[in-house]
């Protein structure tokens, strides 16, 4: 029984990703002269930067993960996020909202994202179209609304104070022993942790979560088993829309600026990370743990390229490599399962 468990574990992508992450941490730790993890304080300037990068990417990865488990692809979540936060910040600015508290803005962005997500969900569940094509269409459509129809502008220094203050909240503060420069761990990390916990709970402990796996595994069987596939998909895409709106707003707070074009092409770095984390491109496979580890690997590499002595121009090369490795492994696994 124990050997069987061990065997199952070693067959999972997450297992290998974790090993890669540990090796990478060790490598960066050595090359940076112990700057990644420093006891007793644990947090260093480098690792809080990595964690900060992981907040938005990690949360977006959760959006992508749940959709991929159900056997779909959502290319539109960055566009939903961009339209939601650009519209929200513009409205807040014009009406003088959110000067002290960001909550109304966060809810508004979620509501906008929810409506946009419902459009995705409605098209996908009603017309049974390929999700990648539908969301490619809505992605362009949403970007068009934001840039063309509403002509939403960049908002930087005039961003409502409520958002700025919220983004500056931190849960840890220290100073770099060498330079004396202060650094903080953003409180937004808590949202990432909370979201991971919620998504993990939904995926593993609710029938809705199991429905996503079931639909991703075999949609016809899921229908026959008694799942309402149409409703499940509608709920999924609208929830992802709302979540994307929320994440976008968190990003605005963290960056203290709202730039409509900032999200363009984001899906092309998020989806590969999710695949690298063990989600199958054919659906039905994927875990929160694997996804977080993969996002960790990518954030760590992109933040420590200089330390590792790699020119940052190699970033693109690395991203491409991630896509190829992730997709190949995913395809090989699916093949093995068929035979």
């Amino acid at each position: 029984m124990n050997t069987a468990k061990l065997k199952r574990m070693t067959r999972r992508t997450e297992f290998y990703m974790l090993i890669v992450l540990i090796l990478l941490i060790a490598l960066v730790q050595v090359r940076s002269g112990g700057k990644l993890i420093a006891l007793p304080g644990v947090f260093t300037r480098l690792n809080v930067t990595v964690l900060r990068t992981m907040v938005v990417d990690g949360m977006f990865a959760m959006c992508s993960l749940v959709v991929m488990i159900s056997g779909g692809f959502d290319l539109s979540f960055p566009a939903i996020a961009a339209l939601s936060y650009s519209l929200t910040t513009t409205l807040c600015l014009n009406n003088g909202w959110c000067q002290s508290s960001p909550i109304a803005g966060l809810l508004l962005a979620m509501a906008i994202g929810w409506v946009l997500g419902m459009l995705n969900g409605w098209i996908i569940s009603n017309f049974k179209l390929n999700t990648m094509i539908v969301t490619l269409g809505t992605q362009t459509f949403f970007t068009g609304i934001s840039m063309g129809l509403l002509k939403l502008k960049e908002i930087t220094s005039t961003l409502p104070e409520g958002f700025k203050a919220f983004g500056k909240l931190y849960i840890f503060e220290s100073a770099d022993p060498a330079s004396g420069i202060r650094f903080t761990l953003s409180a937004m990390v808590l949202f990432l942790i909370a979201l991971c916990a919620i998504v993990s709970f939904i995926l593993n402990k609710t029938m809705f979560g199991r429905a996503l796996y079931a639909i991703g595994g075999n949609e016809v069987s899921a229908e026959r088993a008694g799942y309402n596939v149409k409703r499940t998909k509608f709920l999924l895409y609208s929830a992802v829309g709302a979540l994307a709106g929320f994440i976008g707003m968190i990003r605005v707070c963290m960056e203290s600026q709202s730039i409509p074009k900032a999200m363009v092409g984001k899906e092309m770095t998020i989806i590969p990370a999710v695949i690298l984390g063990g989600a199958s491109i054919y659906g039905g496979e994927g875990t929160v743990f694997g996804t977080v580890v993969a996002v960790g690997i990518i954030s760590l590499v992109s933040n420590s390229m200089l330390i590792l002595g790699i020119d940052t121009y190699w970033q693109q090369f690395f991203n491409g490599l991630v896509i190829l490795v992730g997709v190949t492994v995913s395809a090989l696994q699916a093949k093995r399962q068929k035979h």
Partner: protein
Amino acid sequence: MSEYLLQMTGIDKRFGGVHALDNVNFAVRPGKVMCLAGENGCGKSTLVKIISGVYTRDAGEITFEGQPIHHITPAEATRLGIQVIYQDLSIFPNLTVMENLAINSEITAGRKIVNRKRWEQTAREALSKIGYDIDLYAKMGDLSVADKQLVAICRALLFNAKLIIMDEPTTALTKKEVDALFKTVRQLRDSGIAIMFISHKTEEIFEISDDVCIMRNGKNVYSGETKDLTKRDFTFYMTGRELVDDYFVPTNISEKPVLQVEHLTWKGKYEDVSFDLRKGEILGITGLLGSGRTELALSLFGLGKVDGGTIALNGKPVKITSPIQAQKLRIGYVPEDRLTEGLCLRQPIADNIMLSSLKQLTRALGTIRHDELFDKSNEWVSKFSIATDDAHKHASTLSGGNQQKIVLSKWLNNDLDVLILNGPTVGVDIGAKQDIHALVHELANQGLAVIIISDDLAEVVVNCNRVIVMKDGRLVGEMTGDRITEDNILDIIR
């Protein structure tokens, strides 16, 4: 209460202009195995979908346990105790055995939260119904087809099934697995469950069923007890024509052999095999699975190894190292399933016929001469009397038998001397099987040398003028003419 568990009278169903079910009468007795037989497209699956509530009938009456049923939905069918095990088994390959077993009942119970303990309990209960033991945490996709099927059966039993409908359950199983499945089916039958077994395989139907209902073109043409039916009648009802075994009579055997194989060896697969083959012959190679019959064919087509011995074509020794080379040497090989699967259904018939010989039809820059493509393919249409009025129509417009003729013409286009058919009629309807056999006879008598590799002894006996038998990688017997009988072959194999 009537003696029938399920009774259907005068069932009618139309899809647009197609009369899918025409006044079908059908009944299942409790504790019996009822076989629903018929060739592809006869309305079997439509009938099943009406019973399981996926389709609604246009007319007719259904009673279950004596109670008239007016409107069936899938949920209602489950409540009544009707379970369908579809051909694809409706499993989730990405989930564990436990989840596959428990998920349906959890959904039916309207649960929202997952309770692993309860799931495991449900799964164990399901397995105990037929005393089947398997690792609950194994991934479903890793199991063999036979195991997947047993899991699907266990899952169906959770719903206190009174009637289990199995849609072509033996298609992907080996003989041994079929025997194991039948054991389970009998076990269920003896516990009082009615089994509706959908199949088109004569042998299986006679082995397992108590009652049989045969459908043809949307009508039921026979229903009654299996023991009152002869295999001959069965074939007649299935196909609507009197099929007599047309034994192959060679009329055009060449003097010199076209293929000579001497002491051919592929270490570990087969050893020291020698035979020759003349034009106009149909040579059967038979033997059990693992006897080396398929490997021998692979070597002849350049897909297998040759460790020793020689192959000569038309008297000249050759070395065949790749399929491309084999084709150049005018050897063709049609693997199992190819006759049924080697088609682009949504492409024109003509394109399908010419698919593997487009090179003959290209201009300098690689563009295709379409006029010639249609001329050439029309030759095949008339030669094989493929039932179509226009070769521009999609291959999907043809019946199964005609589709197989297309696949054969595709291979024959390349002017072959030797055609190797491996299991040419595996999974093919009786009627279409007959058509293929007739076609092969005709080809042989036109001067083609044919090798049929098959473990279907009846097929070998009817179609071959010479048979060689392999066992454990060695050639153990050869017989010709009247000496070729199933008993004689079995004597050698055993």
